[in-house]
């Protein structure tokens, strides 16, 4: 994707979160490092009451250069820390080489029915198509009135 495409991609993620009722910042900084890798972080909160803890969403992506002014997504971390419900759900793909060696998959998931007390450090995961798939999963987890269903996942 070119810079214009990445910009539109980030804006569409912000709009998606905002449309779902999350409070998001109006501006996001994407950074490019000395190797040419590009990264950005989109955050949001979903306050349900005027005071008290809020649910936090964080969507991080790293893109590697594949040509002149062209990048492809190489890593992501999509996180929901649901403080009102005291639980966490996350979909990650980072440290891909090590993850493949250890887990047999480039992606893994986190699931904590009780925040900070995971029954398993890493659950096997499938690579998500894009940030919007991550947002839909996070929104679904946020709306889940019952348990997150961590027990049904495969511990790596």
């Amino acid at each position: 994707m070119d810079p214009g495409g990445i910009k539109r991609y980030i804006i569409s993620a912000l709009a998606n979160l905002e449309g779902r009722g999350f409070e998001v910042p109006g501006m996001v900084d994407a950074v490019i490092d000395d190797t040419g890798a590009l990264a950005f972080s989109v955050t949001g909160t979903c306050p349900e009451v005027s005071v008290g803890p809020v649910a936090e969403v964080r969507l991080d992506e790293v893109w590697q250069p594949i040509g002149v002014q062209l990048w492809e997504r190489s890593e992501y971390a999509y996180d929901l820390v649901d403080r009102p419900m005291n639980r966490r759900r996350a979909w990650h793909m980072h440290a891909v080489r090590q993850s493949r060696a250890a887990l047999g998959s480039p992606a893994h998931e986190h699931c904590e029915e009780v925040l900070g007390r995971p029954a398993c450090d890493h659950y096997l995961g499938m690579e998500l198509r894009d940030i919007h798939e991550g947002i839909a999963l996070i929104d679904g987890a946020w709306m889940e009135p019952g348990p997150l269903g961590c027990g049904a996942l495969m511990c790596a």
Partner: protein
Amino acid sequence: MNKRFYTPHEAAEILQVSSSTVMNLIHDGKLPATRVSDRIYRISVPALERFAAGVPATAFEVTFRRVHQIAPIGEAVRVPSELELVEG
């Protein structure tokens, strides 16, 4: 715990439209919803409130800047290091 989602039927009552209109809004991408199963959708309470209020979308901005090195991702919350990953 506050109610976090509406069914399409509940959303229809709040918006004073038919359930099929709500489903059309969902399928047209105008009302964000999450598909729980083949035939079950959930609409988050804040999403419906936002839609009902007709809040205009924010004009978001994205800037690009140079840094020496980007920070590793996936470690904001308790996430094991790469070494821990290798060691399982």
